[in-house]
């Protein structure tokens, strides 16, 4: 009896692992020999509609084909390296439903193996930067705060809460891993400018990442931080907390006579 139960549980577990991946093409019955080969297969079925056969890119909207009836339209991936593939895939920026949309952090639809395969494939499309290995522990939070204020706060807000850039959102940085921050800085995805080693050395990048990590749980003394968004939530509290309470007290105190 117990063995049956265990078997059923194992079966459910297997299903649970397999199920999320089934929505994505490439759940091939045949196992390609190399990771790059699997990557090519997954790429062909999910990415080439916009990024072109062999990742050459499409500089104008192509004919409707591929998954989801997309008007294929996307940059060439030759030479972007494992760095870009790792970033876009692990944040869920890609695949992108509509090439005109801003890529946003979303659920990763590929399995870990498929992600690795895609990265290997994209890296094979031409010499490009590898996945960075930042060391934020070697950076200095204070140097990072200065660098972040100089280069990043204009879009991402000084405590990395995110902000508005005309026509897109600079996202809050709390969900990003150190690797993803390093990748984004070197790539400059979407409307973000990029910062190469000539402007921001690896050591400085370590400091920036150390600061971003600090902003995940900064020194928040003085009470409830209201999201660190500044005077707008403060004004709301002044009116709707203090104002309501104090006017309420005047209502208690005011009506005196029968």
């Amino acid at each position: 009896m117990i063995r049956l139960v265990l078997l059923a549980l194992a079966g459910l577990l297997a299903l649970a692992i397999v199920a999320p991946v089934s929505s994505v093409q490439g759940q091939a019955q045949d196992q390609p020999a190399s990771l790059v080969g699997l990557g090519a297969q997954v790429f062909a079925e999910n990415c080439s509609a916009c990024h072109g056969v062999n990742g050459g890119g499409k500089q104008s909207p192509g004919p409707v084909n591929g998954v989801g009836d997309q008007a294929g339209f996307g940059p060439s991936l030759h030479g972007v390296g494992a760095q870009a593939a790792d970033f876009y895939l692990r944040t869920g920026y890609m695949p992108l439903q509509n090439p005109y949309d801003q890529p946003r952090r979303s659920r990763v639809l590929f399995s870990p193996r498929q992600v690795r395969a895609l990265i290997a494939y994209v890296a094979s499309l031409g010499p490009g930067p590898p996945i960075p290995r930042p060391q934020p522990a070697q950076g200095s939070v204070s140097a990072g705060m200065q660098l972040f204020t100089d280069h990043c706060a204009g879009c991402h807000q000084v405590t990395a809460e995110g902000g508005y850039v005309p026509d897109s959102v600079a996202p809050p940085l709390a969900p990003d891993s150190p690797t993803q921050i390093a990748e984004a800085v070197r790539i400059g995805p979407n409307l973000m400018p990029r910062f190469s080693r000539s402007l921001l050395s690896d050591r400085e990048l370590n400091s920036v990442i150390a600061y971003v990590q600090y902003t995940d749980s900064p020194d928040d003394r003085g009470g409830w931080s209201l999201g660190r968004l500044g005077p707008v939530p403060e004004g709301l509290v002044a009116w709707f907390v203090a104002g309501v309470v104090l006017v309420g007290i005047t209502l208690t105190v005011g009506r005196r006579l029968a």
Partner: protein
Amino acid sequence: MRRLGRWIVAVAVWLFARRGEGRDRRGDRERIVPAGPPAPRAELVVAALLLLAALSAAAFIAVYAIDRIPDQTQFLGLSLGLAFAFIAAALIVTGRNLVVTEELDGEYADPQPDEAEKLVQIVEESGSRLSRRRLLGGSAAVAGGALGLALLVPAVSLGPVFDLEPFTRTPWHRGRRLVGDDGRPIAAAAIHQLEFATAFPEHADPEQLGAPVVVIRLAPSALHLPPDRRGWAPEGILAFSKICTHAGCAIALYRAPLFQPVEKPPALVCPCHYSTFDPATGGTVVFGPAGRPLPQLPLEIDADGNLRAAGNFSGPVGPSWWGVRDRKAT
């Protein structure tokens, strides 16, 4: 032990005993404030609230004194705030239950034109010895006016009110090197497309509106600069004042499209009111409330490959003022 107990009882009785009613010192004088029935429970409530206030205030002192308490600010605020809150509650209960609420009639005072007349009369009659009122009045006005003006004049020392030359002065001139905020010169090769850097004039105070510039690089084929700015952008490297011409914030946003066909073109944007400037056309305003294009700094690349200014800005830096377009950056 029993003596202590008796003392405690004695104090408690003394504290909690209620005074008899109507014990007046003056006997039969007429009451001004009407009498009202006692409210013993309310009295106890008020006493309890005041005691709680005392405890909260004591807690404040304790929190202040004990360094090891974390979140000190919160506990300090909580204890002091509660102390005030308990006193407030005690007073409100007192007001509702422990004092007589009278409804009194009063009168709105009227203006008193007779008294005002008398005032005027006093002043007028005091002038009985004056035969040349116009002369005296006029000279008093002139004296007062002149003295008032004299007393105001030292205010002019507050700033160069009549000399607006400092407003157009910038620390840039031909040959001045661009440096980062670490003081090191910026090489032209360090700036690639899609990147942006903030640069300052070498050996100058960075804390002035005319100092900071943003440096970016566009493909030379994408440039559409005004004809008098030919050569201002060697290799497509452009420098603009970092200070927005709308209200003076630092232009800290650079919109750098990675895949231009689906994204907006490159632009420098100010985070305050989202004035958006197009670097390809020399800093013209494409969105937002700025009324004047962003001043551009002409660049040249020196023998070491570093960036230098090739002159001063295309116009005065910072927010506009009356007649700003008549002036040049100096």
